[in-house]
């Protein structure tokens, strides 16, 4: 009984903490018809100094190929451990990847950036970034290679 009470308190406080400190974040990545294998996409946060914070989503089935997303791999030092529960299938050319997640309030408008690194087998990877600000939310930016349009909604 005591344990149950403790657990309930813990769950309640966690939920409260999330309500206070985190905002829902939706990431929408639309790919071009780039003519290659289904693409692997890494979506991750980078701090104002250019240091990797955490991965938001990893689209791609085989961990063995995650290093092909060169920028993600370089910045995160291959943060395979941080991918638990946030991976999904790769994304075919012309398809759209939509990811729903949360982001801490403290990171918004604080110089943090969202990075999108895309790679496809036998082609090189291409990363792009957008500042994580309330201002940029909802604006569509276009990538050079794979990404037809990327936007996030806070």
């Amino acid at each position, binding site marked *: 009984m005591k344990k149950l009470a403790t657990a309930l308190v813990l769950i309640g406080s966690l939920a409260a903490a999330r309500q206070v400190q985190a905002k829902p974040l939706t990431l929408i990545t639309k790919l071009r018809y780039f*003519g290659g*294998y289904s693409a692997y996409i890494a979506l991750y946060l980078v701090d104002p100094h250019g240091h990797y914070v955490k991965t938001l989503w990893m689209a791609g089935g085989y*961990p063995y190929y*995650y290093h092909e997303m060169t920028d993600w791999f370089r910045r995160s030092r291959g943060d395979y451990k941080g991918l638990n529960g946030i991976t999904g299938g790769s994304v075919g050319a012309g398809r759209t990847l939509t990811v729903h997640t949360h982001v801490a309030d403290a990171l918004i408008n604080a110089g943090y950036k969202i990075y999108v690194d895309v790679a496809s087998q*036998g082609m090189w990877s291409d990363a792009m970034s957008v500042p994580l600000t309330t201002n940029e939310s909802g604006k569509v930016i276009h990538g050079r290679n794979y990404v037809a349009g990327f936007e996030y909604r806070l």
Partner: protein
Amino acid sequence: MFRQLHKIPGLFAALLIVVVAASGVVLSLVPALDTLSAPPAPAAQMNVAELAASVQRHLPGLANLSRQPSGKIIAAYSTDTAQGQDVIDPRTGAVVGPYTTSAFVRWMTSLHRSLFLRTEGRIAVGLSALAMVLLCVSGAVLLARRMGGWRKVFGPARGSLSHRLHIELGRFAIMGLMLSGVTGLWMSMANFNLLPNAMGAMPQFPASVNGGKPAPIGTLQALQAIPVSDLRNLTFPTDPSDVFTVTTAGGMGYIDQATGKMLSYQANGVWKKIYEWIYMLHTGEGFWSLGLILGLASLCSLVLSWTGTILWWRRRQSLPKMKHNHIAHTADTIILVGSDGGATWGFARTLHDALTASGYKCHTASMNQLARHYAHAQRMFILTSTHGDGAAPESARNFMARLEKFHGTPKFPVALLGFGDRQFPKFSQFGHDVAAAVDARKWYAMLPYHAIDRQSVQDFARWGRAVGEALGHALELTHQPVRPRTRRLELVERIDYGHEVQAPTTVFRFLAPDVPPTFWERVTGRAALPRFEAGDLVGILPPGSDLPRFYSLATSSRDGFLEICVRKHPGGECSGYLHSLEPGETVECFIKQNPDFRPVKGRAPIILIGAGTGIGPLAGFIRANARGRAMHLYFGGRDPKSDFLYAEEIESWLTERRLTSLTTAFSRISDRAYVQDRIVEDAHRLRTMIERGAQIMVCGGRDMAEGVMQAVEEALAPVGLSVVKLKAEGRYLEDVY
């Protein structure tokens, strides 16, 4: 156990293996085509710095250089106005053309990796690799058992076409399939993180860079130290604080763009090295010849899936369901069966049904199910075949061990019946072994041990009458393996011989009846002659009988008619029926393949030995010998004036060079001799031919075959050869009746 281990993955994964293997066959061509289409390799001493510098001159916005296993260099570029990937000529650094991957190859790759599904597809493909490994291992064990030991696995394959194809292709492809299976399984496990992470440690990203003016790429020392052949990937820095990231065959490192120094480097760990090896072995990337070999093996696996399914189905069809099968404890009659292919089960059912009809309570089970004692048993029958070179068949594998545990000596009598093939050196060996083991335990024999050659239903019926005598009432065992679909053929010609020497023998020629075929018959091809080869058997059903009699065919269907050679036996039901036929009448018949009695392929001479009607199939082989291969015929008869079968044809075959030599022996003339006497006289000549690879084919009665075997044995003894050895090589074939 191994049969189960072969059957279960085979059946469950057959379709999956077909899809994965078929796509694998297509993909196996890719490395070879890539290598063909790759621009010539650069000079051996060229390093990455030189290559990068020369590409940079031709391609503004160069962002990445990679070298594929085929040696193709791909450059990715990105400027404000354009981006893409180009194939580079490594000798000059010039662009050859844009780099594209074929949509077809991508489609095939997705199919091969995941059947267009996600995780489920990958799991399925991984399981198909596991199934392939199990099939290879169990298949190898089964093959060794069938051939009579590991040393004999490359001996001649015997059996039906499906069986021989399965054995021949399996032997050819097993190493390739094993390699594909093991490497595929490894990759699958690595991708599901069931193996240590192949990526291993990462080089430390440099805390700071020089930050000075970037040096020309051609002068960077760390890049100069890497030969192009070692390069995997080179990513260019995107801003002054960035570095070059280089991946080589040996590891990964970061290079300062101002100083050209390697800032940090991490060599590949052992798991990554293993993974790369496995990847190369599986895909053939960078090793295209291996890729083609694996592709060929995969192609074989398509046929193996098909033949394997056919073999399983035939086996299943031949396993009978026993009616009125009592349990061991209450039965008065125990029937134990040792069977591999299921044929012996068919005979057991015939016995079971006949005894049940006579009022016995039968319990029919496999020999592996031998109980420790039988409470009410009054008699026991053991029917067993032999596996390969004298081993126990599948359903009798544990029999000897269980016999050890049997309580005491049974009070009831036992009848043992073996099944085998005289073409194998150890004819029905396991039956002999069981008989000896039972004898040693002083079991009481109802009948002496008897062995049946090649599932002869006549012999089985004879044995049944002997059983009936022992039981004190009539017992008729009419065994019909799988009731064949019969055809009606019309007798068009008969040539009679041997009347004067009390051996009336006739050559019968049949054609498809001359009636307009129905539409269905035309579609199914049943209007024409069935397909057969000389040496195959035709089963003829005399009117009112279900028991077919088999006769060796003297023609192949290409000759346009079906020919047999039959001697009239006193009281012979079928031979009497045939001899009473007049041209225009029809017979009901079907073809039974006899694929083990054929001349071996090649140019080696063939020695044909036959007496009486035994010349039939031998005449067929000679008739088909249009290429003039050396064929030597030894023929035995009674009197050249009366029963010299095919005398006229033989003369013309000699002039046409279809037949090389003829030696005859006749037993009812002044210079009387048997055909085996001629073998003794010709020992030296025969020995020479056999040493040159000749094959011996014997056809005729049992006594004659025994005599010939002895004569050949004596002829071979001086050179250390034996009939047993020749039989093992498929070079001494018998068709004996």
